């Protein structure tokens, strides 16, 4: 095979890869538009229900607040509201504007963990930080601090949901080439093969999560936030037990031409 043939083959292979990538992106964009419209429609329905129940409760409201049935229905509508708003955020994340400013990863981790602890309530589950940040001075993370906090928060929150009281959630950040990996590991039951495939899909809830309070939006949001930063979310079971969620984020010093994708382990 001559050099020219090899060159031509390589070029057409790159073309095919680009076409596949473009098609994937078009498909993902269509899905986001769908989510946006769905969220909009459901929001309208939820609004009518909420105002209707407001009418009911304001005519029956006493010192003790709305009757139980109305209060329960209101709680469900609140849940529906969180769901539709979450879907809307997921669909419109890029449009909401992603800032690119230097981010102190240690601060991001600390804030996310404090939020998750607060959300978990006063139970016995603990969050331990093994290594709060990658070694200093080795590249800067450019990104949207608040979004990154949100992403890590969802990973920690998710890990806490699957942890037994007293069990620790381990959070660490490390550098790997041109990437930073934020790892959140729990000692829970681990994910099933199905969970591993689908856990980052919106509204997917694994068997272990059913009946719980989750909405099935935390991991998809974390994944989307990683993507708008040029990174990705990896989920895997640890060899011994538990699940490890890894948020891969590119360091700012790289020029995109030399970037390599995070390696699959």
């Amino acid at each position: 095979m001559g050099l020219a043939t090899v060159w031509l083959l390589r070029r057409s292979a790159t073309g095919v890869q680009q076409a596949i990538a473009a098609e994937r992106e078009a498909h993902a964009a269509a899905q986001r538009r769908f989510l946006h419209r769905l969220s909009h429609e459901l929001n309208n329905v939820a609004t009518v229900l909420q105002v209707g129940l407001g009418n009911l409760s304001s005519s029956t409201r006493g010192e003790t607040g709305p009757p139980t049935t109305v209060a329960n229905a209101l709680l469900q509508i609140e849940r529906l509201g969180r769901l539709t708003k979450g879907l809307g955020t997921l669909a419109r994340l890029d449009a909401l504007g992603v800032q690119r400013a230097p981010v102190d990863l240690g601060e991001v981790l600390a804030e996310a963990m404090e939020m998750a602890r607060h959300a978990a309530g006063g139970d016995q589950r603990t969050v331990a930080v093994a290594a709060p940040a990658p070694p200093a001075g080795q590249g800067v993370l450019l990104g949207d601090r608040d979004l990154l906090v949100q992403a890590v928060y969802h990973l920690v929150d998710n890990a806490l949901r699957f942890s037994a009281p007293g069990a620790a959630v381990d959070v660490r950040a490390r550098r790997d080439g041109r990437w930073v990996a934020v790892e959140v590991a729990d000692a829970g039951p681990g994910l099933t093969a199905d969970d591993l495939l689908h856990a980052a899909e919106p509204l997917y809830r694994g068997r272990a999560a059913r009946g719980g309070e989750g909405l099935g939006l935390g991991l998809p949001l974390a994944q989307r936030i990683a993507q708008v930063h040029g990174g990705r979310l990896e989920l895997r079971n640890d060899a011994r037990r538990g699940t490890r969620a890894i948020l891969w984020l590119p360091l700012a010093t790289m020029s995109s031409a030399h970037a390599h994708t995070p390696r699959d382990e």
Partner: protein
Amino acid sequence: MKPTILLVDDEKALTAELAPFLERSDFKVAVARDGEEALALVETAKPDLIVLDVVMPRLNGREVCRQLRSRGDWTPVIMLTQIGAAVERGMTLEEGADDYLNKPFDPFELVARIRAVLRRTGARVRPIASARRLVSGALVVDRTSRRAFLGERELMLTTKAIAALEYLMLHHGEVIRRARMLEEVWGWDYPGATRAVDVRVAEVRRALGDDAGEGRFIETVVGEGYRFTAPVVVEA
């Protein structure tokens, strides 16, 4: 006399529930089904405040608001938005709405907002929401360049901290719940995350030299949220 609210939404099921709710809350209510009807009704019904849905056929809410403002009509407007819409508003300045509420909303919250906006706006003057500069004593927030100054000194604040300060100043005198701020400045809506608000408000206070207990500008309302207590002057 009861204030008149013009309720504009193409969703009939919603106006059918919301109109009686507002009436029971001691308002007179007029209803318009789309933007064009709304513009016509503003002339005849002379509402004290307009509750305006954003997404509508024919003329959408943002356009209605722009048209009103461009003809010098400063009737207060509360815009009903989808989450994130208030966050992605570089357009707010031009749009000139007085407040935003994400759907779905608690109708009691809407009534509280209507009362707050009516209190704040009183006479029909240019709304604070369309001010380019917010001034409170030595503190100046330039909303166009998104910079803040205390006297001669520029305050080094993150974008979110400026947005938080701006939001509190725009709603000065009102107690702003942390969850509300989180939803409207950050575009998030889940429990626990209100810590993010505390972090940004603390950043603003540090920059202002404002003590958390006895802030000159921002007061902590224990168990509720924050209130910008100093008077705010609007500079066009």
